[in-house]
């Protein structure tokens, strides 16, 4: 049981971090960023390139991933999403754009980084073993702690910085925020850059554990959507809750249901369908959006 909880917490921390960026973008711009998983993959490849190809320290790789993805996110918002949102009132326009960006990034990743699975060697060696009740490699513990730290920093930033407060105001009521002098275009761009940066950071963190490959983007996006649907789309605390709930469900399912074959995700999806039928806005979302 202890091992199941430890696995669930570790998975939950990384999932929550992935979901945060997605929900931030959704809350600010009402955009479902289907390219979020590809941004995560891109971040992983940037860290890989910096650490393995260039031989620089892991921290530099993480910083490079955050920077590259933040710039990419800002550019995507300014030159692609902002014009489309300005010209089209239809939600599906941004959805199609996001899907197009996902395919485009897949192609860029293939050309720039190749088709092979890539990984960064372990940053910490050794395995924590508590009397065979909890077995957890030290690098996973480190990444889990770093992920939780990043979540805390993000929450602090959103709650106490001027930029964070402006973005929250924008997410709550765009018209009112605009009337109070919040520059919508500027903060939308910052928000998108921050969301992309989070995706890049988590990609950089996890490349040391799971590695990274071209095909991880799509499934990562699906899981991220799952998490924000559980927690409530556009709600920061909801994304964190969704991440931990999904992590725990996966950990419990894979252990308890393993004897019945690979039915963990079948059970998770079935549970989610029933849950959404009862509470379509998710755990912490508001029915009115």
């Amino acid at each position, binding site marked *: 049981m202890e*091992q199941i909880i430890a696995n669930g917490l570790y*998975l939950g921390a990384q999932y929550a971090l992935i979901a945060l960026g997605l929900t931030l973008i959704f809350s600010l711009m009402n955009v479902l960023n289907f390219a979020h998983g590809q941004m995560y993959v891109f971040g992983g490849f940037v860290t890989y390139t910096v650490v393995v190809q260039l031989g620089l320290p892991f921290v530099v790789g993480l910083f490079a991933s955050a920077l590259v993805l933040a710039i990419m996110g800002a550019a995507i918002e300014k030159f692609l999403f902002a014009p489309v949102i300005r010209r089209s009132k239809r939600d599906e326009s941004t959805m199609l754009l996001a899907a197009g960006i996902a395919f485009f990034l897949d192609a860029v990743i293939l050309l720039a980084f*190749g*088709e092979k*699975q890539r990984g960064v*060697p372990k940053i910490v060696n050794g395995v924590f073993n508590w009397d065979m009740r909890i*077995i957890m490699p030290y690098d996973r513990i480190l990444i889990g702690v770093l992920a939780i730290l990043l979540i805390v920093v993000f929450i602090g930033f959103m709650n106490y910085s001027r930029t964070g407060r402006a973005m929250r105001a924008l997410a709550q009521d765009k018209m009112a925020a605009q009337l109070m002098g919040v520059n919508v275009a500027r903060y939308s761009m910052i928000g998108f850059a921050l969301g992309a940066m989070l995706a890049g950071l988590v990609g950089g963190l996890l490349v040391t554990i799971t590695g990274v*490959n071209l095909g*991880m983007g799509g499934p990562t996006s699906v899981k991220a959507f799952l998490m924000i649907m559980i927690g409530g789309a556009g709600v920061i605390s909801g994304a964190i809750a969704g991440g931990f709930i999904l992590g725990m469900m996966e950990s419990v399912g894979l252990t308890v249901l393993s004897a019945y074959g690979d039915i963990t995700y079948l059970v998770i999806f079935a549970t989610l369908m029933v849950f959404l039928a009862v509470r379509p806005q998710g755990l912490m979302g508001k029915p009115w959006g």
Partner: protein
Amino acid sequence: MHKRTFLKFSALAAATVLSMPLMAHAEDATLKIGFVGVTSGPAAAWGISNQRSMETRAAWLNELGGVKIGDKTYNIQIVPFDDQKDPKRAIAGMEKMAQDGVHYVVGPNVDDGAAAVRPVAEQNGIMYFPYAFPKELFTAPASNAILGMVANYQSGPAIYKYLKENKGVKKVAFVAANESDPLSQRESGIAAAQALDLEVVSGNVTYQVDTTDFTPVLLPVIQASPDLLVLSGVSPANAPQLIRSARELGYTGFISTETGQDATVLQEGAGELAEGFISVGGASTPELASDTMKEFVERYTKMFGEYNDESNTKVYALEYIIETLKANPAAIDNVEEYKKTIDTFEAANPFMKGDAKLKYVGMTSFGQKRQVSVPLVVNEYKGGKFETLFVGQVD
């Protein structure tokens, strides 16, 4: 006079210009060879190594002046199609090949794709070389598919037997991705292990291909205390993480797979935890590789930046097609002629030292010759690279 000279010159120029396409056509006959396989997504490495092997070899042959088949010399043109590991896309790819007049196609890479394209290939007179193992594709009445590699039901028993006899393995566990290929490979692996009187202590644990943490997946498998953990049909993307998780959970036994892997990927993803990992390698080792094989590796690396060990096997399909067409030029647009040649075909194997031959095999497994003969090389990962454990042959 001037006018007459001008007219003569103009007529000559016009004749030259008009005849150029005909001359070019005569000089540049093209033989199109198709590739339908997966070149995107998690299994992209499988198909890309196919496509790049074909493109490298084709560019090399074209550089040498093309390939002489019968009286004609052909430039080889590779026509690729990414099926995205989706059987529907594989069918569309094979239909495209038929529309383009392609009669010889390498791929698809996975079982369901290979099974899906069968009707299209048979109706349109296409021979195809899948890297997938369903026996019904290669046994009569099917006759258009030729297995491009060694199947897991041929390599698996050889590996288990070796480990049983040389390493004292008694208990085996299998883990597979929840997809058709790995699941069918797991079933045939279990059957092979049981036939060797090995005890299967875990055989029903599966995982999603997009799993990011394999610890919870492997926990019940490791608790069953196997001597050998078989990663059935594992993709190069998942192998390092599975090995790493198993070792981190304290597993000290053997780990093996019947799929091809990449040493660099293992080194980056699992590091020293991958030591001793056993897998089926590309059909070449330093001891077996001829100068042609070494040059192929050099050219591939120059063209694409990095070599893939799987290309040691995947270089063969195009060679078999070209050499068989050379043996029977009538097969260039008639696969029935190709089929007639298969049983007696034999040519020098340019990729192996000595007097090795290219020939079709498969009588034992399929009852007819519907498999290319490539060496069965079983590797062990040691110190960042593969070392040959043993080499076998399929009949």
